[in-house]
């Protein structure tokens, strides 16, 4: 009875929404309660939650999802330039355009499985990245990145008589600016909806069939399922989530650059998902939060700050420690990420969520894992 209550969608969503919306409060003790970082938590959380619908349910490892994030960002900035500074059309268009590209790339990549699928997605994403830098410069503005300009047409805005006199216009949601906490709350609200959709998919027969494809695709074919359209649908949905995240990134900071599509960015969402727990509902979101939080701390450090941190040590030790830790901070933060990732994969292959399960088990209220997480029987 109690178990069923905890497992019900409504209860999960209420708890989830409460936790997300109060983030500015409970992140204060770890110093993460400023809007920039909170926005990143929510946006990359959406990216990872969507990626998990492909990777977590079907087991197909895409190394190219940053392409859809980038496409979403470019689309949103174009919507700001051509249509309106309102984020609603920008985000909707970002999702649609990313979805179309996902349909195309997914259709081609899904002709193969396993490592060949991964490499195909990687190749397509790198193509998108190179194109954005070269021939597509008129659309992407190449290396500089796509930016707003004062003389952009913004046809919808000008229809409503909005004139921009000095400086650049700001993105807004029907007048509310997208900067600071309001930006976070918009992203948080979208995250809640995105999470709800993912929850529904996980607990639907459709989600169950995706899991079965992951478990034994050959069996699925002889059981009467045409597996290709199932995989393609999952691919497109996760691509649309990536587009949504990209559109949100641009909504908060109206700028789109090709580096968003680079393979390192595609790799990052894989790390987030694995680190949090592939195929679990909440794991990928946790992974996104952990990585963005650590990135925020480690990439901001530099040598002089390290020296200060280790000031309490005798000088000779301080010099050694600072020199050893220095490559792991600032630009070198990816080294820390790599090391952390290795530790997690070796000791907790199921990610942070496996750790949570283990702790639950220690305290005696561990539950037998059912196949779809939390599925009510």
């Amino acid at each position, binding site marked *: 009875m109690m178990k069923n209550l905890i497992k019900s*969608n409504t209860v999960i969503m209420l708890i989830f929404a409460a936790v997300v919306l109060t983030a500015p409060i409970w992140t204060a003790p770890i110093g993460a309660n400023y809007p920039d970082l909170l926005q990143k938590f929510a946006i990359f959380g959406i990216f990872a939650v969507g990626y998990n619908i492909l990777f977590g349910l079907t087991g197909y490892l895409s190394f190219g999802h940053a392409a859809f994030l980038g496409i979403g960002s470019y689309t949103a900035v174009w919507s700001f330039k051509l249509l309106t500074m309102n984020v609603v059309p920008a985000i909707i268009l970002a999702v649609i355009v990313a979805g179309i590209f996902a349909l195309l790339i997914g259709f081609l990549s899904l002709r193969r499985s396993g490592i060949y699928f991964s490499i195909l997605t990687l190749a397509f994403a790198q193509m998108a990245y190179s194109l954005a830098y070269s021939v597509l410069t008129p659309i992407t503005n190449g290396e500089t990145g796509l930016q707003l300009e004062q003389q952009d047409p913004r046809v919808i805005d000008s229809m409503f008589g909005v004139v921009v006199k000095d400086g650049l216009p700001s993105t807004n949601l029907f007048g509310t600016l997208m900067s600071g906490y309001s930006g976070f709350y918009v992203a948080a609200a979208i995250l809640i909806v995105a999470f709800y*959709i993912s929850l*529904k*998919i996980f*607990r*639907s*027969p*459709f*989600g*169950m*069939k995706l*899991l*079965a494809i*992951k*478990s*034994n695709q*050959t*069996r*699925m*074919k*002889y*059981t*009467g*399922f*045409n*597996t290709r*359209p*199932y995989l393609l*649908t999952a691919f497109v949905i996760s691509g649309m989530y990536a587009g949504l995240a990209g559109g949100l990134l641009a909504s908060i900071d109206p700028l789109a650059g090709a580096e968003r599509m680079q393979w390192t960015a595609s790799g990052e969402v894989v790390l987030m998902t694995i680190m949090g727990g592939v195929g679990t509902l909440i794991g990928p979101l946790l992974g996104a939060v952990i990585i963005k939080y650590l990135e925020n701390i480690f990439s901001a450090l530099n040598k002089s700050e390290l020296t200060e941190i280790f000031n309490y040590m005798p000088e000779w030790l301080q010099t050694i420690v600072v020199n050893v830790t220095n490559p792991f901070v600032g630009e070198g933060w990816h080294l820390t990420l790599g090391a952390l990732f290795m530790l997690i994969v070796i000791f907790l292959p199921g990610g942070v969520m496996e750790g949570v399960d283990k702790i639950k088990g220690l305290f005696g209220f561990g539950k*037998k894992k*059912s*196949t*779809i997480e939390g*599925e*009510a*029987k």
Partner: protein
Amino acid sequence: MSEAMTNTASKTMLEIKGVNKTFGGLHALSDVNLQIVEGETHAIIGPNGAGKSTLLNCCIGKLIPDNGSVTFNGRNMIGMAPHDINHAGMVRVFQTPEIFPELSLLDNVMIPAFAKRDGTFKFNPFKSMANEKVIREEAMSTLAEFALDKFYDQHAGSISRGDKRRLELAMGLIQHPTLLLLDEPTAGMARHDTNQTIELLNSGKMGEMTKVIIEHDMHVVFSLADRISVLARGHIIATGTPEEIKNDPKVKEAYLGEEAVDE
């Protein structure tokens, strides 16, 4: 055993005509002709490597024969996708259990039931598994028929090999196939388990179903089959009732050997 063979009006359900299949230089099937009649239980026997599994693979779209035809209820099966063949009503149970090891037993049986209901593709992401009561109950009662309902929520990968085979039978049965193809359903089972499985295949819905059973256990074959075909080195060397097969000198020589004398 069914009455099908005594019924003169019984019609051919599966017709395999002149099928050849080679793997490189190996002639796995040579000019195989076989008719499966509605209502019968047809056993295919033959030594290891005779081509029995290959023959089934040619029926369900896993392999495409080099030439010849496979017609099921009047429809040409060659070149048809495996999932379409399934929906045409021909369902295969594999030699090495093909199940969903990471999913629960219940889910393993619900999935083929979904295939029956939803067709080859259906996008229903906002339907809830929790509300699939009809299919869940059907799956539970199917599990119960195979005495697997006690551990319905266990991972299918964790159960014994014999139970996995029975699970796969349940997965086939829940689709109410017109023709069930079973590839050595008792291989690797202890005698007790084998008897239990024969009992299952012989009674209830399974008993009435038209089926093709590949089997090397003579005990199973003679207690199940209405007709038997003997396959040796890719050739069908005899087809007939168990009595006829037992007494066929060619068969004795080629395959049955001493085992036949024991039976």
